[in-house]
């Protein structure tokens, strides 16, 4: 199975993965920042994040400052939604678990012939991408900028 096939599998299951992740976030008593958010507000940038991760897996590209635009957008939105940094980190941790569990399911299913090396490479990109977002989030939340509303 190629990295493209792994990315295609994840992309075709984005709806289910988001559903699993949403449930995990809502049920986690340690996350409180989500309480006042509607479901669309909670989901917000996560589908775009998954699509960007899939694109990186497809291109076998290492996530970094220049190719994680959606991760940075998510930090921006969460910061303005009044999230705490620790809740965002926990939320991203749950997203990581959701994705790595799915990767394991793909591997255990056996029908798509995912090798250990291929799973490891895709897992590495997932981890590095989410670490990149956490790195950015920590930088922002530790020195919080001024909250500004755009003027129309």
């Amino acid at each position, binding site marked *: 199975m190629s990295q493209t096939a792994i990315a295609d599998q994840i992309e075709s299951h984005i709806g289910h993965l988001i559903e699993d992740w949403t449930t995990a976030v809502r049920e986690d008593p340690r996350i409180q920042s989500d309480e006042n958010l509607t479901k669309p507000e909670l989901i*917000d940038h996560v589908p775009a994040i998954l699509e960007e991760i899939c694109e990186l897996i497809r291109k076998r590209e290492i996530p970094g400052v220049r190719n994680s*635009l959606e991760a*940075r957008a998510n*930090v921006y*939105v969460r910061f303005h939604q009044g999230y705490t940094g620790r809740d965002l980190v926990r939320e991203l941790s749950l997203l990581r678990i959701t994705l790595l569990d799915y990767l394991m399911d793909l591997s255990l299913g056996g029908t798509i012939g995912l090798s250990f090396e291929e799973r490891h490479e895709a897992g590495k990109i997932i981890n590095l991408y989410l670490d990149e977002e956490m790195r950015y989030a920590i930088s922002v939340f530790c020195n919080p*900028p001024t909250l500004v509303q*755009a003027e129309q």
Partner: protein
Amino acid sequence: MISQVDFDKFVKDYNDDYLLLLKRASIRHYDCLISAFMVLKDLYKVIQVMFDTGHYTYKVLPYPFSFRADEVLLGQLGFDQQEIQSIFGFLDHVKTTQGMEFEACLEAGTVAMCARVR
């Protein structure tokens, strides 16, 4: 190395320009908007790379470059429903005129400069 004051100015310039481009999209003024976003994306990346060095802090967060399918973000930026639909309409416009998604267009670089009548 540039000063924190200069860095703040970069961020302010980026934010002003970003909002201006979105405002243009929100009134369906799509002409040459792709090339404008292309230039702005480079500035956004420079800001992010500089911030990542740890030498600078944000007085104000730069607006995220990505706005695809993000009503929450566009709402936060002060756009109403009709304007948001016009902004999303720009993404459709890019696909129709350039034959590729907006993001792919930005990656393609100068090939996609300014829509041509075909």
